[in-house]
C-alpha cells in the first residue's frame, strides 16, 4: 500500500528516500531474510536428511545438500504395512469426516440464519454453553463407551461433528447474503429445503471452502481421539503411527523383519533414522501440496472470524 504511495509520488516530484529510511529498509530486509531462513531451514533439513545416508546426517556431514542420495527410506515407508494402513485410515477419516462436518454444520447454520425461525436463540444458547463448559475426558469416555463407538471408526468422525465456532461463522456468512433472493424463491413457491439447496448453497461456496479446509486439516492432524478411544491396530490413523515412530520410538514392523535378516544392528538403526525423516515428508506432503491452493481461503476464514468477534 505504501508502495502505491511511492509510485504516485514518483510521477512528478519524487520524495527521495532519506538515509535513515534506507537503513530502515536494509535492516528490515535482513530481518526478513533471517526469518525466512529460520522457517525454511528445518524443513529443508528434513527433506535432505530423508534422501541422505543417515550416518552422515547424524554426524553432521549433511547440512546444505543431500549426500549419498538414495530412496531406501521411502521404499521402507511405502512397504511398511503399519504406515500404509494408517495412511489409508487417515484419508478415509478426513474425507468422510469432513463431508459429514460440512453437511451437518450447514444444516444447522441455515435455520439459525433465518430471522423468522423461532427458537434460534434457544438453540444458539444450547450451542454456546458447550464452548465454555464440557464434561471432561472421563465422563466423555464413559458416554462414548455407552454409545458403543469406542474402538470403531465412528469415534474418529462423530465427536466434533459440529464445531460451534464454525457453525457461527457459517451462520454469519449466510446472514450476510442478500435475503431478497430467498424471498423471491419463496414467492415463486420454493420450499425451505429447495431454497437451501438451490439458492443458498451455490452462494455458500466460499464459506464451504473455508469449512472444508478447517475441518479437513483438523481431521488430518488429530491424534487425541485416536489416542484415547482407539486401540485396534487396523483403525489407527497416521498421526498415531507417527507418534509411535517419532516420539515414543517404537520400532516399525519392517525393522523387525530386517532384524531377523543379515543386516547388522547399526544398519537397522540407520534405516530407522532415515525412516523418521521420510515418514515426516510422506505424511506432510499432501498438506503442502494443497497449501498453495487453499492459502487464500484460510486467510478468508480468519477474516470472517474476526468480523464475528
Amino acid at each position, binding site marked *: 500500500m505504501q508502495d502505491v504511495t511511492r509510485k504516485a509520488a514518483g510521477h512528478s516530484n519524487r520524495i527521495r528516500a532519506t538515509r535513515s529510511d534506507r537503513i530502515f529498509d536494509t535492516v528490515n530486509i535482513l530481518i526478513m531474510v533471517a526469518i525466512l531462513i529460520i*522457517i525454511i531451514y528445518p524443513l529443508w533439513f528434513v527433506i535432505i536428511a530423508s534422501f541422505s545416508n543417515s550416518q552422515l546426517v547424524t*554426524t553432521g556431514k549433511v547440512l546444505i545438500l543431500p549426500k549419498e542420495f538414495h530412496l531406501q527410506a521411502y521404499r521402507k515407508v511405502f512397504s511398511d504395512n503399519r504406515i500404509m494402513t494408517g495412511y489409508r485410515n487417515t484419508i478415509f477419516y478426513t474425507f468422510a469426516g469432513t463431508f459429514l462436518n460440512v453437511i451437518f454444520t450447514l444444516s444447522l447454520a441455515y435455520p439459525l440464519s433465518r430471522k423468522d425461525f423461532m*427458537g434460534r436463540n434457544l438453540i444458539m444458547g444450547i450451542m454456546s454453553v458447550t464452548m465454555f463448559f464440557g464434561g*471432561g475426558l472421563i465422563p466423555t469416555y464413559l458416554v462414548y463407551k455407552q454409545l458403543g463407538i469406542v474402538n470403531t471408526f465412528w469415534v474418529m468422525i462423530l465427536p466434533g461433528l459440529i464445531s460451534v465456532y464454525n457453525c457461527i461463522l457459517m451462520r454469519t456468512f449466510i446472514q450476510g447474503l442478500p435475503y431478497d433472493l430467498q424471498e423471491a424463491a419463496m414467492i415463486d413457491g420454493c420450499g425451505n429445503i429447495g431454497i437451501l439447496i438451490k439458492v443458498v448453497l451455490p452462494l455458500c461456496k466460499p464459506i464451504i471452502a473455508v469449512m472444508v479446509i478447517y475441518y479437513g486439516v483438523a481431521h488430518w492432524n488429530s491424534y487425541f481421539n485416536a489416542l484415547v478411544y482407539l486401540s485396534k491396530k487396523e483403525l489407527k490413523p497416521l498421526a498415531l503411527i507417527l507418534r509411535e515412530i*517419532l516420539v515414543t520410538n517404537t520400532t516399525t514392523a519392517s525393522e523387525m523383519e530386517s532384524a531377523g535378516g543379515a543386516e547388522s544392528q547399526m544398519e537397522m538403526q540407520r534405516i530407522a533414522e532415515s525412516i523418521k525423516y521420510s515418514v*515426516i515428508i510422506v505424511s506432510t506432503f499432501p498438506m503442502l501440496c494443497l497449501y498453495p491452493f487453499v492459502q487464500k481461503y484460510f486467510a478468508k476464514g480468519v477474516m470472517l472470524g474476526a468480523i464475528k468477534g
Partner: protein
Amino acid sequence: MQKASKTPVKRYGFRHDLRRSLRRNWALYLLVIPGLLYFILFLYWPMYGVIIAFKDFSPNKGILGSPWATYRGTVDIFKHFKNFFTSIHFYRTLRNTVQISLYTLAVGFPIPLILAILMNELQNQRFKQIVQTVTYLPHFISTIVLCGMLWIFMRSDTGLFNILRGKLGLPSISFLNDGRYFKSIYVWSGVWQNAGWGTIIYMATLSSLDTQMYEAAMIDGASRLQTVWYITLPCLLPTAIMLLILDCGSFMSVGFEKVFALQTDLTLEASDVISTLVYRKGILETSYSFSSAVGLFNSLINCFLLVTVNFISRKAANISLF
C-alpha cells in the same frame, strides 16, 4: 417472510407466532434436529457424567449406581477434590499451566504484531508475497510432526541442534530430557509454527487503511520509522487489544496434544499440566473419579476466566464474545 412477519397491523402472541413458524418452517426444524441430537448426545450427556467426580465410580455399577464418595466410612462428596488439592500434582500442574500460559502470551502476542508491521514495510511486493507465503507455511504442519521434528533435532549428540552447537564448540545437551528447557521449547516452537499465521489478521487490517495518511505524513517529512510509530501502530492497536482479550480467555487451557507429545517422565516436574494429568490418571491409571474431579476443576476455572474476561472487555473496550 422476514418482512411479512414485521408488517402485520395486529401483533400476535408468542404462541401464535410459534405455531405459524412451526407450520411454515417445519422443514427448518427438521434440519436442526440432527445437529441438536449431536449436541445432546456428545456434549450434554458427558456433562451429566461429571457427577462421578463426587462419587466412588466403579465401571460395573455405572454412573448412577456408584455410591457417593466416602472417606473412612462417612460420605464426603468432595473427597477427590481434597485429594487433588493436597497432592503434589495440584501445585505442580497449576504452576506449570500458569507459567506456560504467561510465557506463551508474553512471546506469542507481540511477535505477530511486530512481524506484521515489518512485513508491511517491505517495499518489494514480490518479496513481501514470498515472506507471507513462507511464514504461513509451518501452520499446516501437524502438532505430532512438529513434535517429532523437535525430538529428532533436540536429541543429544546426533540432533541438528547439538550438531550446530558442536560446530560452535559447545557441549551437547539433551534438551527434551531436561525440564529447564521444556517451556522454552514449547513456546518458541509455537512461535515458529504460528507467528506468521498470526499476522494475517493484522495484514488485513493494514490493507484496509487509508493511504492518504501515509502520503500526508511523507509530505510533512516523516521518516519511515515515524510513520510506523505514529500511523501503523495506532491503527493496529484495536485489533491487537481484541486478540489479547481473546488470548486471555483461553488462558488456562494449555493444549494437551503438544505438551503430551513433548513431555517425558524426566520432565514431568516442569511439563505436567492439568490436561496431561487428567489423561494419565484417568485413562492410564483408571482413577476415573479422581481424574473427573481434576477435569471439573479445570473446566470451572476456564469457564470463570472466560466469563470474567468477557465481562471486563465488554465494559472496557466494548468487545465481547457473547
